[in-house]
């Protein structure tokens, strides 16, 4: 246990130490300043600008920014959709895998990777060719992360610029993000992963005879390169079905540490970027502190519940940890619950253990983090702008208590912003609840459940929370590759992504036109530790209370039953 806690502390320390300079660097990238390697990056980027015939210096108002973003993502989704349905005719398919069998699976997967969700209703090794994995999935892994970052940056610009209408250039933002942030880190990370034993080849699968004499096919592929962006871009779509519990994806405790680090480093760094860009570091610290507070809380609950374990197993006289079902022995309780908390905090969705097998409360933590809208650090960009919606709500309610019209960073929060904020919070929450409810009542929905009772409800809730939260991790029990779940979760992912992005960009577009009132003794200080605590409180009250009734019937009662010796 001491070791586990040391791991947690070490992890957070390394994360913060690296996120800080990265955040400052990202501020330079997004302020369109020169960065190191300018002589290499600038010509490279110019090739793309010329090819696309865009001028990276043209500033865009929010509607144009948003429209470009949507068209760009729609094209990405379409090409991935087509690629899956034609892969049999295309090269780089040594295993001669057929085209993806159903349109709805292809739709689901295309939506999934475009929205940074990476929900996988298929098994990578038996479904997708190397070409689809590399050209389709990996490319979307980069672009969806860049899209998220672009939205976050546009929102920051909306908050710090004044009396203008422009939010920056979408093309410059995604290209600079990809070339100057994502690619360099990925190159280093890929090499580090390979050093730990993650494979990287284009070979056909290997047939071997096991010690017991059975035949086994071992899947191969360009894993390491996809693994790096899978974590860094908080995508989470595994090359293999077993995701990061597969030894070729995540072989050692060191690779495990590295992967967790990659998941959170950009989301954490963005808070420092925010502090830099608004020229008030405390603003970034306060929001980061709030996220870390929630993170530690969630991690504590998850770890405690897993460590406490399953009394039914303990009763059978088993020594050691009792909640090891679905966890890799090489990671143990500590690394597994940390990974589970990290991956759902960050809308990544990579897993190194099966969340389905967690205790009721242990499984509640990942689910709750997704239901909150992935704002505990969150996905690349998405976590930041999602949390900003809670910031606006907090500022609005609490700001009134100091006797002024609520304002954030000197900008007033008025009816328009309130409506857009509510929309960004309400639509995803309503989608999770409605789709889960409908699935509970329909035969098609119930067909996917593998465990009856409260645990089955948890599986459904988790599935939609994962889709809407753009997380992509699964409560493995749900059999999701059906017309019903492919379409519904596919839609959930699209809603969860764009029903937040559009309001956020609209808020940015509205805020950017406003004046900035200078702060003074009468203004509500949003850079304080009190604000950090308040923000966490509002996230829990507004976010969690919405789901409390449903959670009570799922994981909470699940846990209570387990403590009484009953499982499902």
């Amino acid at each position, binding site marked *: 246990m001491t070791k586990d806690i040391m791991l947690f502390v070490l992890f957070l320390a390394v994360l913060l130490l690296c996120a800080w300079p990265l955040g400052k660097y990202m501020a330079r990238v997004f302020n369109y300043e020169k960065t190191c390697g300018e002589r290499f990056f600038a010509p490279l980027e110019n090739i793309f600008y010329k090819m696309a015939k865009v001028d990276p210096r043209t500033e865009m108002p929010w509607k144009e920014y948003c429209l470009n973003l949507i068209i760009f993502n729609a094209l990405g989704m379409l090409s991935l959709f087509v690629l899956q349905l034609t892969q049999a005719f295309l090269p780089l398919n040594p295993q001669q895998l057929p085209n993806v069998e159903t349109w709805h699976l292809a739709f689901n997967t295309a939506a999934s990777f475009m929205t940074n969700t990476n929900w996988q209703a298929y098994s990578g090794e038996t479904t997708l060719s190397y070409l689809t994995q590399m050209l389709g999935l990996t490319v979307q892994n980069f672009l969806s992360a860049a899209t998220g970052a672009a939205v976050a940056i546009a929102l920051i610009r909306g908050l710090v610029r*004044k009396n203008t209408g422009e939010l920056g250039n979408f093309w410059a933002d995604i290209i600079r993000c990809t070339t100057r942030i994502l690619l360099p880190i990925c190159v280093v990370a890929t090499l580090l992963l390979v050093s730990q034993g993650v494979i990287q080849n284009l070979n056909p699968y290997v047939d071997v005879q096991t010690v017991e004499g059975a035949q086994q096919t071992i899947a191969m592929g360009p894993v390491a390169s996809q693994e790096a962006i899978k974590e860094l871009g908080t995508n989470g779509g595994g090359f293999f079905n077993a995701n990061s519990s597969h030894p070729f994806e995540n072989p050692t405790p060191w690779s495990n540490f590295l992967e967790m680090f990659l998941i959170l480093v950009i989301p954490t760094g963005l808070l420092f970027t925010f502090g830099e860009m608004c020229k008030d570091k405390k603003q970034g610290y306060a929001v980061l502190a709030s996220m870390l507070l929630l993170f530690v809380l969630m991690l504590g609950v998850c770890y405690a519940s897993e460590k406490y374990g399953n009394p039914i197993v303990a009763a059978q006289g088993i020594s050691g940890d009792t909640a090891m079902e679905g966890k890799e022995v090489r990671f143990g309780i500590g690394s597994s619950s940390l990974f589970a908390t990290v991956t759902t905090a960050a809308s990544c969705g990579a897993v190194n253990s099966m969340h389905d097998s967690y205790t009721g409360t242990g499984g509640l933590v990942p689910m709750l983090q997704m239901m909150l809208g992935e704002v505990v650090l969150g996905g690349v960009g998405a976590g930041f702008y999602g949390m900003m919606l809670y910031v606006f709500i907090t500022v*609005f*309610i*609490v700001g*009134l*208590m*100091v*006797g*002024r*019209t609520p304002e954030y960073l000197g900008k007033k*929060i*008025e*009816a328009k*912003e*309130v*409506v857009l904020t*509510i*929309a960004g*919070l*309400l639509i995803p*929450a*309503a989608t999770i*609840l*409605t789709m*889960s*409810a409908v699935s*509970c*009542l329909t035969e098609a929905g*119930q067909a996917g459940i593998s465990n009856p*009772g*409260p645990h*089955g409800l948890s599986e459904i809730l988790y599935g939609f929370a994962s889709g809407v939260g753009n997380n992509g991790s699964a409560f493995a029990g749900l059999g999701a590759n059906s017309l019903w779940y492919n379409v519904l979760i596919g839609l959930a992912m699209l809603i969860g992504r764009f029903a937040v992005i559009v309001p956020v960009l609209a808020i940015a577009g509205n805020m950017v036109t406003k004046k*900035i*009132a*200078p702060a*003074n*003794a*009468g*203004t*509500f*200080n949003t850079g*304080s530790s*009190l604000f950090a605590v*308040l923000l966490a409180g509002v996230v829990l*009250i*507004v976010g969690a*209370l*919405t789901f*409390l*009734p*449903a959670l*009570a*019937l*799922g994981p*909470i*009662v699940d846990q*209570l*039953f387990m*403590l*009484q010796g009953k499982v499902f």
Partner: protein
Amino acid sequence: MKRDRQQQEILGEAVRNAFLKLDPRIQWKNPVMFIVFLGAILVAVLAVRAFMAGNTQEGWFDLHIDLWLWFTVLFANFAEAVAEGRGKAQAESLRKARKSLQAKKIKADGSFEIVGSEAIRKGDIVLVEAGDTIPNDGEVIEGMASVDESAVTGESAPVIRESGGDKSSVTGGTKVLSDWIKVRVTTNPGETFLDRMIGLVEGAKRQKTPNEIALTLLLVGLTIIFLFAVVTLEPFAIYSGTVISVTALVALLVCLIPTTIGGLLSAIGIAGMDRLLGRNVLAMSGRAVEAAGDVNVLLLDKTGTITLGNRMATEFIPAAGITAGELADAAQLASLADETPEGRSIVVLAKEKYGLRERDLTHLQAEFIPFTAQTRMSGIDIVDARIRKGSMEAMQNYVSELGGAFPAEVRSACENIAHQGGTPLVVAKDKQVLGVIYLKDIVKGGIKERFSELRKMGIKTIMITGDNQLTAAAIAAEAGVDDFLAEATPEAKLKMIRSYQQQGMLVAMTGDGTNDAPALAQADVGVAMNSGTQAAKEAGNMVDLDSNPTKLIEVVEIGKQLLMTRGSLTTFSIANDIAKYFAIIPALFAATYAPLEVLNIMQLHSPQSAILSAVIFNALIIIALIPLAMKGVAYKPLGASKILQRNLLIYGVGGIIVPFIGIKIIDVLLVALGLA
């Protein structure tokens, strides 16, 4: 006694109105309460159906819940009605002043005809003589009269209204006591100041303010979120093998949606306007009251706000070879007939310091020489001498014209006085300069502390004065304002307001003259003095009936208090949800999933009593908070972070704890009374 009776009347009327407001067309305007309203109707139907199906036990439970749902709606209606009732009582007394009047309309030939006041139109000219009531708002174009404005201001002392200058505006419904005036009417019937005032205090034309709209939208958003949470609960329950009664779902929904703030929101707004009115300030829009809370910069006129209206003589400084007594004697003589406050103060000082009594002027065969803009001095001619007092420049000219010299020590004394923010008044007997009177601007007591409070609240105070830089700087330092604008012209004021607004600040100011109108209109909060001109009153968004410029500070406080009350009650309302969940969730599912009983941390008696207690608490808390909504949360001039900590502790933490206790008590009572 009379107040009590009036209070009772308001409450009685409010109870009646609470029922009248059950009209769905009125309910619809408050979306949060409209949901409760619909829920109450639904549960009523369910109760009837249960009874008809012979299911009395369920029927009684439904009926109990329904009763409290209706109470919830009625309590919210009552809160609004009480707030409106207070305004109505005030409107009633105003309306008495507006009864149909006879007016003397002047015809083209100069003679007048008597017409009803409703026939008077904008542009008409009326004659108002002693005993007449002024039929409509207007501008005095001829004459001067003393006017009783108590109908509007509540102040019984008559005021002077005369043509030209800043005292030319008259208000319809006020009464001329002496003399006569000719008034050019500036409004049509039904649009007068009095009419607008009645409309405002009655709340009839009350429009939701920007912040209130934003808050309402937030509450609607939360309501919709909870609607989804509750409606989807049924499918989850069905999946879990149980069915929750619709009554229980409605009860859960009503408990979760922010009914507390939803029910009190409009009452808070009306009460805010009322509080202003209680201080005799009339806000032309709720928007202005809100803006007052946001103000960062206060422009305050020096005279009347920071200093007592008038300068006072505080010291006699004699020239070389003259005793202070001689100077005082001459100064007193020169001031005896001077009725200006400065003149009076010189006489008073002479009496206090040198025991000089007033003298009979007729006995001295004195002739008073009044102040004129040309000579810029005043004084007295007596048998053997001419005594003059005036500004240094004027007196210098006067003395040198007579061939006298202006002593250097007097000049330096004058400069010294100016440095300290005072006004030197030189006294001369014929061509001999006797010395200087030190006229001092007296800074109001306690004003410095007030400004430092404002500073703590993040509000910058700026003194506006026509004085020169030196004088202004000295007074500004003494009064403790943050900045000053000396030799202020209306243009300079306007420019200053614009530049602050450019920096994102909100500016408040007071003004009375016509030349203040552009600045009043530009300022975010412009408080016009009721004694001021019609133009100033039109330009400002508030009118101070007492014409007391210091009140601007109170206006800001009321604006802040209004916003604080809204925020505090919203926080309280949302924080309450935690306890309600702990009451209702175990109650709904304890039958299906026995282990969920551990969530019943309040140890409520039974599922029925738990749900009923939560609903009753939810209804009663509205009534309990009506006084707070009316009074506003306690306001203290502290910095934002201190205020926040305080309010968070009371309304945030309190909002979490109070319902746990309240629901438990109600549950115990219900069991004791055998109701559950």
